[in-house]
């Protein structure tokens, strides 16, 4: 059975690219939301196996959204996504309980490895 992914990103390009990278894999995009606020609101209804969360979005920062989701749903598996991050961001992601970090543009191997580790 496919693993269901919730994609949180305000970029249509990122959504399309993620879909391209996941084509032919055991992962399906179950939900696409464009903001951290929407992700918090819809997480319980979607119940994804995994969340990819962009960090820089309009409105709420992805790390803040991830932190709230993880407080409400400690079982959540969230992978942070960014086009640029430094050590302080990695540390914060780890501290809030994110399961991984991937760069943009997406690399299939890096993404699948992060998914496998998060779900492992």
């Amino acid at each position, binding site marked *: 059975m496919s693993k269901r992914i919730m994609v949180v990103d305000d*970029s*249509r*390009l*990122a959504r*399309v*690219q993620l879909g391209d990278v996941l084509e032919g894999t055991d992962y399906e995009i179950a939900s696409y939301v464009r903001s951290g606020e929407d992700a918090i609101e819809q997480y319980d209804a979607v119940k994804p196996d995994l969340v990819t969360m962009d960090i*820089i979005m309009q409105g709420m920062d992805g790390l803040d959204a991830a932190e709230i989701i993880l407080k409400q749903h400690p079982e959540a598996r969230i992978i942070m996504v*960014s*086009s*640029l991050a*430094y050590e302080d961001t990695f540390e914060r992601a780890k501290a809030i309980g994110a399961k991984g970090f991937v*760069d*943009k*543009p997406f*690399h299939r191997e890096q993404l699948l490895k992060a998914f496998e580790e998060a779900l492992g």
Partner: protein
Amino acid sequence: MNTALAKEELERILDQAVQDVTEQTAGVCLRQDNQSPGEDLCTVRITFDKGFHTSLTLCADTGLLSRMACNSFHEESISPEDLEEFSKEYFNVLCGRIARAMFQVTNVPAHFSPPVFYHGRYEPEGSEVQFMLTYSDGDCGGAQFIHHVPRVDEDGTV
């Protein structure tokens, strides 16, 4: 900024990032060329801060950006809104790659502003061109990546 990174090194970083990100994102091969973009242009600009205080501008043929966007979105045509969104996200990802590469060389973390999109060519005030890299897709599509630094007046003030 330029005391942190030599111009030649920055050119190398930019060139590598342009080729990699453009191919990965939009399936287009850009190679350095002497032919400048035409008259129908779009510009996207970001400003680096927290260590570098410079800006990077992409000035490209609208047709080239449209083809890249169509490739990326798997569509035959693209709306002006989608073109703008694509251009900003593409440039955002490119600049992220550049900033990461600069950090590996300088250990200075660079952050940058959200990209700003303009129709036509945009020249930032108070800046001068440090260098410009010109590219072609081999199909009449041109792009220039322009690195601007703060203009220094004759008396040495910025």
